């Protein structure tokens, strides 16, 4: 696995990253790491702030107002509070597994950011297998959840962990099939490649430039629902189910470990939204078939001026936040599904639908 990935990075890197423009080996690597970490720590905070404010407005309150301008530093303040808290480990817990579990959940969520393109040239790596890598990394997080649920030595945690395991494994299937469908349409697994192929993609048989969301509206819906389930976001939050399981697999966690689980969830929201933007919503493109202002043609790194690059990043982040907004909206509007209803939705609706979608798109691709 590792060997093949390394192979892919060294020999088949398709598009040059902005950070490869610097001389030497060490400097680009450091810049890439800084970029990934910055995206990982800043964007979830922005998403979280958006959630606070949007939920507040939808519920006749104002959301955070005290910390920082318009309460924008509330999550930073929360983070500082979490660090100060006592780090409790229950005496019956499996100490090592309990301690490692939040990290096991957190690190894969961070690794996904490695391949997400935020703008023309603004990404750390462009794998040939980028989509495969992102989906694989996301699915490792479930291990951390299961470990935490098991190691807590708490019945609520155990039930929560098992629910999470069942749910995350089940929803992986429609998620991956929907993603595969896009890969079929684009003819590549590279995330950058998928964005670029949407610049010139035309609706079957017509001359109209569109993003993949138009021919694949079903796939997009499936991916969105499955992504929310994968992230245990309401209405699919049975693993946490605060009114049933106290706080599910996180019941026994305090302080920084709890904060790590929370960061995993919000980073997951960002990375899933980013994947949706890349797969369906044309990445950094402003309009389908029209190059960005400041860019020419397909909009690769060398076609763009610095303003074009900045604009591309802004557009990507705006699209991501729009999807985060939809997720928050669902949280505000819906009650929680029941565990068996959740599984039924997955196996009886989403999986057959996604398979049918794959078949239709594949046939259309061959015919037209």
């Amino acid at each position: 696995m590792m060997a093949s990935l390394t192979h892919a990075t060294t020999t088949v890197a398709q598009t040059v990253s902005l950070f490869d423009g610097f001389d030497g080996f060490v400097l680009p690597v450091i810049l890439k790491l800084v970029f990934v970490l910055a995206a990982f720590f800043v964007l979830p905070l922005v998403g979280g702030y958006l959630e606070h404010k949007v939920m507040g407005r939808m519920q006749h309150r104002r959301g955070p107002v005290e910390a920082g301008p318009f309460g924008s530093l509330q999550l930073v303040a929360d983070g500082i509070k979490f660090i100060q808290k006592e780090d409790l480990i229950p005496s019956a817990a499996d100490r090592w597994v309990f301690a490692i579990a939040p990290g096991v959940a957190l690190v894969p969520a961070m690794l996904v950011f490695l391949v997400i393109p935020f703008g023309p040239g603004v990404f750390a790596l462009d794998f040939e297998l980028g989509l495969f890598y992102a989906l694989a990394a996301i699915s490792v997080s479930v291990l951390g959840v299961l470990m935490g649920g098991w190691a807590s030595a708490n019945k609520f945690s155990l039930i929560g962990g098992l629910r999470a395991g069942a749910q995350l494994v089940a929803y992986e299937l429609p998620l991956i099939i929907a993603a595969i469908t896009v890969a079929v349409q684009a003819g590549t697994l590279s995330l950058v490649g998928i964005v670029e192929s949407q610049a010139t993609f035309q609706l079957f048989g017509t001359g109209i430039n569109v993003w993949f969301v138009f021919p694949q509206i079903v796939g997009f819906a499936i991916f969105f629902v499955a992504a929310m389930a994968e992230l245990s976001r309401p209405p699919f939050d049975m693993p946490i189910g605060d009114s049933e399981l106290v706080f599910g697999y996180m019941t026994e966690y305090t302080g920084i470990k709890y904060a790590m689980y929370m960061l995993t969830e919000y980073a997951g929201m960002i990375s899933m939204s980013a994947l949706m933007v890349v797969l369906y919503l044309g990445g950094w493109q402003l309009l389908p078939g029209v190059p960005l202002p400041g860019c020419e043609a397909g909009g690769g790194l060398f076609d763009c001026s610095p303003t074009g690059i900045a604009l591309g990043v802004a557009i990507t982040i705006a699209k991501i936040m729009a999807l985060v907004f939809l997720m928050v909206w669902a949280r505000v509007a819906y009650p929680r599904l029941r565990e068996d209803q959740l599984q039924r939705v997955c196996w009886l609706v989403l999986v057959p639908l996604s398979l049918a979608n794959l078949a239709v798109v594949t046939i259309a691709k061959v015919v037209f």
Partner: protein
Amino acid sequence: MSDLDTKERIQPATAPGEGIAVQFVGDADFPTQDMSVSIGPAHPATHGVFRIVLELDGERVKQATPVVGYMHRGFEKLAEHRDFRQIMALVNRHDWLSGFSNELGVALAVEQMMEMEVPDRAQWIRMLMAEWNRILNHLMFVGSYALELGAITPMFYAFRERDDIQHLLESATGGRLHFTYNQPGGLKIDLPKGFLKESVQVSQTVRTRLPDYFDLVLGNEIFQGRTKGVGPLPPDVALSVGATGPTLQATGVAEDSRVTEPYLKYGEIDVEVPVGENGDSFDRFYCLLHRIRTSLDIIDQIHDHMPAGPVNTKLPKMVKAPEGATYVRTENPLGQLGYWLESDGGRTPWRLKMRTPSFSNVQTMPYLMEGALLPDAISILGSVFFVVGDIDR
């Protein structure tokens, strides 16, 4: 794990392509061990210190045992050491969401024993307050039940309306939860100037916002999926444990003491009693929500009827109920509240027995939860509306 090893053996395939032969030794049932989970006394879904012990087989509840008494505050005994006016400040605390209705029950009992004539205006104001109190209570449960099913927003909506109503009641009584507005023979004080006008306004506001709950909660597909057919309660079981209020009405029994045994002036106005069909969680919530609407209808009628006149009678320095006993039942927001008041002619009751609706309603839970899934158990727990202080007294 060891059970699995001895009972089930997977034998390797003998030749390629033959597949795996699975042989079960002993009975083929997969042996599992039940897990006992204690929901409460400190659990988010029990909104208080109610405890229910669930025997779980996976996610399925095999047995549910409510454990009450964590909040026993000895109201019945305390009441024996307070005089009849002081009891008012005591009884509005056992069901803290229906303070006014509780006071009303005791006031009616004392008046009945002392054979007092209560002025008309006092009776109409009592009805008005009781109905506003009922709406306050029901709004709270609309919010908290949705919260138990995972929807956070209705709670905020409900508190928006609750705040308006509490503001209104505060202007007359000085209290937001514990009103202490009754006294034997009437009310402590008349309504403030402009109260009725504001009451009409609040009534209109709540009425225009009521469709929000019908759409957002009752009409929501997921809400219906979580509540329809969950915890069906047959009327005979409900009656055998003495369930009342929305829990009983949901089973199709239109029992409401405002109609069947009218007190105050309920006989002079129309009181509609919403009933359900299946007695499931959905019907219980449906009845609760419709009771808000019927209460608003009652309030509008009261506004039209409100007479002028005094609101209390002159009381002797020492209120003493004559020797004897009486039982008064009123329709509290959660069901029928009964007070058995026994007096030896002294200045305090000799015995004040409470028959609280929550205590009886909670007794339906072992029946309802048996065989339900864990999330359904929570759906049932929330839909059998109770206040922990009202169970434990």
